[in-house]
């Protein structure tokens, strides 16, 4: 937020009150106002300017004129007016920009202020679908969603993804240009298109979550915020578009998030599921997630997120690792594999199988996957094999597999974990 000119005649108290109210409004409403302005103005950059100018105008006018009864509607109509005004001013000087290229904001039908504000939640949904449009690369979708929908700054996104800010900035500028050039409609896709388009939205949200959840690198505080942002997006999507898979993804994220405190030591080292202190799990998140899984599974054929959430829920309800219902977990993996075959899912199933039928059965399943060569360079496949060999007392094989896994991982906490396991095998 930008400080106003000191030209206001209202008292300093009125100014301070408005300022703190506006800061609160900026946090809670600015992305909603922005989403509506994108629809009304047909352009991201123009909407951003309009949003900025609307908050600036509020800071100047509200101390004297008082707060409007509907601040959001006031911000939307002011932002729209300011953007149109800026466009007109600029048209006199700007010889490069082709104004005909844009929808005329002034003639756009939008009705009165109230109806502008009423459709605001739909606008947020439109914005998510536009930011996750398949013509954009996954990296661009993520950066654009975090900045335009979540309101993160370019610098925050860069920090979270360990990228240089100019790289992220360029991605965002190019993504907006692509959206403009390809004339991507600002709309929630039609029913026929929805499954595909929703997939890409869910993938972006899950990627953001995982980036914040995986202990890969970087500042852990920033990372927790990234996961929180993904969960916020998941909640928003579930609220606006309660499809079974939207609900499934939210459930999956909540149950995984419930283990955040237990899955690393204070020093940042990894703690595997079977060794976690289960009293550190957030049982409120587990309860919410489990209820959502049940709701999702009851409302139609289970999609991949709902099935993964169901598996996470079975783990979450077990009082100890040994008391886990492994038969149910293997069954859920079978279902997942049947519908969405993937070698990584197969690997996870093999680990569950080891717990259900014994280490030798699990090892045979992992070896069968590795034999096909698909996961030969996947460090977790070798780490899982090493673990089963270790439990079977086959130390030489375990050592070789841990070493192979260590050579393939670049993540600090995972490297330290594997080194500890290697050391524990003895000389």
């Amino acid at each position, binding site marked *: 937020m*930008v400080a106003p000119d000191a030209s206001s005649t209202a008292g300093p108290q009125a100014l301070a009150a408005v300022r703190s109210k506006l800061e609160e409004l900026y946090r809670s409403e600015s992305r909603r106002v922005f989403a509506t302005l994108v629809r009304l103005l047909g352009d991201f950059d123009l909407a951003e300017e309009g949003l*900025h100018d609307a908050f600036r105008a509020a800071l100047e006018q509200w101390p004297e004129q008082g707060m409007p009864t509907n601040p959001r509607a006031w911000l939307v109509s002011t932002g729209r007016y300011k953007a149109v005004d*800026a466009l007109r*001013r*600029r048209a006199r*000087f700007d010889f*490069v920009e082709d104004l005909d290229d844009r929808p005329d904001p002034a003639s756009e039908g939008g009705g009165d202020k109230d109806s502008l504000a009423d459709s605001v939640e739909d606008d947020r949904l439109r914005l998510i679908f536009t930011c996750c449009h398949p013509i954009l690369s996954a990296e661009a979708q993520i950066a654009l969603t975090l900045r335009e929908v979540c309101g993160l*700054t370019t610098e925050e996104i860069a920090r979270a993804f360990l990228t240089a800010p100019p790289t*992220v900035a360029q991605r965002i500028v190019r993504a907006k240009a692509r959206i403009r050039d390809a004339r991507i409609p600002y709309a929630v896709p039609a029913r026929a298109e929805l499954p595909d388009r929703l997939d890409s939205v869910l993938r972006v949200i899950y990627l953001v979550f995982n980036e914040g959840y995986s202990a890969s690198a970087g500042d852990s505080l920033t990372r927790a915020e990234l996961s929180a942002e993904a969960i916020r997006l998941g909640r928003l999507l579930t609220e606006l578009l309660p499809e079974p898979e939207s609900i499934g993804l939210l459930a999956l994220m909540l149950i995984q998030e419930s283990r955040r405190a237990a899955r690393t030591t204070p020093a940042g080292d990894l703690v595997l599921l079977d060794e976690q202190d289960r009293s550190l799990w957030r049982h409120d998140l587990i309860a919410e997630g489990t209820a959502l899984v049940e709701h999702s599974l009851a409302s139609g054929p289970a999609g991949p997120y709902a099935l993964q959430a169901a598996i996470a829920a079975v783990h979450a309800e077990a009082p100890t690792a040994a008391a886990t219902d492994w038969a149910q977990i293997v069954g859920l993996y079978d279902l997942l594999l049947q519908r969405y075959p993937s070698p990584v899912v197969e690997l996870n199933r093999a680990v569950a199988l080891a717990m259900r039928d014994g280490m030798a059965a699990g090892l045979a399943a992992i070896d069968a996957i590795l034999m096909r060569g698909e996961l030969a360079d996947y460090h977790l496949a070798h780490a899982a094999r090493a673990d089963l060999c270790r439990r079977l007392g086959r130390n030489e094989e375990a050592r070789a597999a841990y070493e192979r896994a260590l050579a393939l991982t670049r993540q600090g906490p995972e490297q330290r974990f594997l080194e500890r396991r290697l050391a524990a095998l003895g000389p």
Partner: protein
Amino acid sequence: MKYLCLICAEKVMEQMPHADADKHFEEYREFTNAIRRSGHYVGCNRLLPPDAASTVRVRDGRISVTDGPWVETKEQLGGYYLIEARDLNEAIQVAARIPGARFGCVEVRPVAEDLQTVRALGFDTQASTC
């Protein structure tokens, strides 16, 4: 965050035909007014052409002065805007509207705001950072 927008172009005002320069000044007046209104403005200046530059060095306690800018490029530094923006993309959006961006280029550089810099420059004891 503050960003410095450095405007570089092959021709500065003094090297343009009068009518072009007049028009360009008018564009700058409009742009600067606009960013004052929007609150992005922190400061700005136009620089005289590089042939007015002197480059100073001190080596072994002796001052040496040479003519011209310290770096020879086809594009010359013609002026700057110091702006306040929410993030780099907002700064880029403002920089894109600088009239000189259509002829030359604008380099956008974040202003360092780390504690050590703030202390070294005395901004922790002064009200203003500009």
